[in-house]
């Protein structure tokens, strides 16, 4: 039994927003331009992105609406319709509501009847976890179709007012992701039968290292505080304390590159990855982070991945958190050239508390 990705879809809200336009959408904190914006953008290399909010901070598309639009785009490119879908697996880092699960809201939006539902909560790797749940459900023979959708609406966390309410000074860790993340959704259709040009899932594996590393990317805790946002007497006090800002602890960020390589080497040792046989590499990360010493080391160790094999649309579609890898795979599938039998390696190293996910795909015949 094999499982295939037989269709893909995406949704990116509104027009592309350039580096120079983004602050006028997100807003000037205390009316002043950011002093870090240029530096952070230079380091992440992103040139344009999309936002589901406008400059008046009205939400034009909710997170579940974006997810539904990506799923509909995916279905429109497929051989099946909504009635044939029996499973929905959805991922996001933050739904529109705290409860119920994001999947329920997406299902309602999509008007899907009677599906088995799975909601996956996490950061960038949650899409891969949602995909794995659907993949294993098909492998177990319990379903023959599943829609997997990942969506992010992080711009709501970046409105200028959020930072103003949380106090005077903006620290680097709180501002880092403001110039990194943006909105969008991606969807994959899984089927237990191959279609022309579908991608077979060879395996999905992940390794989590939360036991050995501190939290690196978070919402819900103020700096130097052990309390959760829910432990404050009122939610307003949590916000004032800065507990609701999205933060990245940049000091520990470099661990993610090492752990990404660590997982890659484990999979080589397990015989799942043969570096010479990889034709395309899709990685949810700004590629220049990887042009570091460790990649020289990988070359020395004979397991380097040639630069011309790497594909990314991160620089133009933005870093959309867990949706990124699906949006990347969708655009790769529609715009890049590949041959039946080609092997695609997808990698999602997540810095939340260090979970690294990997997937290998094989391009099927056109029939």
């Amino acid at each position, binding site marked *: 039994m094999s499982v295939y990705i037989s269709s893909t879809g995406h949704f990116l809200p509104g027009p592309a927003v350039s580096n120079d336009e983004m602050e006028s959408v997100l807003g000037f904190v205390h009316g002043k331009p950011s002093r870090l914006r240029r530096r952070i953008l230079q380091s992440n290399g992103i040139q344009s992105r999309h936002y589901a909010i406008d400059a008046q901070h009205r939400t034009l598309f909710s997170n579940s609406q974006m997810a539904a639009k990506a799923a509909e785009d995916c279905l429109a490119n497929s051989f099946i319709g909504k009635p044939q879908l029996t499973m929905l697996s959805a991922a996001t880092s933050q739904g529109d509501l705290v409860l119920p699960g994001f999947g329920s809201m997406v299902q309602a939006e999509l008007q899907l009847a009677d599906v088995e539902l799975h909601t996956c909560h996490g950061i960038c790797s949650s899409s891969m976890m949602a995909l794995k749940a659907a993949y294993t459900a098909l492998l177990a023979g319990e379903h023959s179709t599943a829609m997997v959708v990942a969506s992010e609406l992080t711009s709501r966390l970046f409105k200028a007012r959020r930072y103003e309410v949380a106090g005077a000074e903006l620290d680097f860790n709180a501002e880092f992701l403001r110039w990194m993340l943006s909105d969008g959704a991606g969807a994959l259709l899984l089927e237990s039968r191959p279609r022309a040009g579908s991608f077979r899932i060879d395996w999905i594996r992940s390794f989590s*290292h939360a036991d050995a590393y501190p939290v690196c990317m978070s919402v819900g805790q103020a700096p130097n505080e052990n309390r959760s946002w829910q432990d404050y007497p009122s939610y307003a006090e949590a916000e004032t304390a800065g507990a609701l800002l999205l933060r990245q602890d940049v000091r520990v960020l470099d661990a993610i590159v090492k752990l990404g390589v660590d997982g890659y080497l484990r999979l080589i040792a397990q015989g799942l990855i043969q570096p010479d046989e990889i034709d395309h590499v899709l990685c949810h990360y700004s590629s220049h982070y990887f042009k570091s010493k460790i990649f020289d080391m990988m070359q020395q*160790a004979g397991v380097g991945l040639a630069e011309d094999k790497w594909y990314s649309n991160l620089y133009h579609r933005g870093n959309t958190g867990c949706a990124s890898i699906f949006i990347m795979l969708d655009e790769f599938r529609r715009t890049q050239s590949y041959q039946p039998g080609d092997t695609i390696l997808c990698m999602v190293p997540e810095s939340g508390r260090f979970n690294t996910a990997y997937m290998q795909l094989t391009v099927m015949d056109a029939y």
Partner: protein
Amino acid sequence: MSEQITTEMAQQGLQALMRVWFDFERQLGRVPLLQRLQRGQFSIDDYQKLLLHWRQQVIEGSRWISRCASSFDRHYSDVRSAIIGHARDEHRDYEMLEQDFVAAGGELVVMHAASRANNIGSEALHGFIMYRASQPNPVDLVGAMWIIEGLGQKMASSWAGQIEQATGCDSSCTRFMRYHGSQDEHHMQELYQLLDRVCNNAEQLAAIVRTAKVVARLYCLQLEEVEHG
């Protein structure tokens, strides 16, 4: 010796050593003292204690590397030359560490009175490495150098800055830690050369990886014991 890794056996050796290193970093992430350093809850007393315990390791380090060099026979005279060079470069590093200790408010008499036996991790690490270094042609010690070199880079690239930030002391207190980072590129090249030279068969590869793992584990033990000694 080649400047690059040229053989498949040495490439496999490097892959395995990279994994040992990543695992070692995770082990370090579980050491309470280093967890506190990570959180910024690390005092000048903690730093003094760390240096006090580290000193013995640095002193012994210059001894085992000399012993290691003398255990290579004439078939490995090129390796011996490389290791003698290394020993010469580093055998008085502990003096820099002592100056850091004083700059951080420590008293030299206290440091000189300290003994290796205060830290059972140092005791075990020293015992193991000296035993290996005394074997004929101890090629497996490349595994030990891999861990110790990596640790030097980690001290320079993250610990030194974190210590300065947490304790409020300036870079005059962290010269030993920072010095190691400045030698990065050069030392990495040397390690690649050595690995390419001495990792020639499956047996040597296994020995190198095993020694790297043991040294990593004992280093962690030494760091855990800093707070017990």
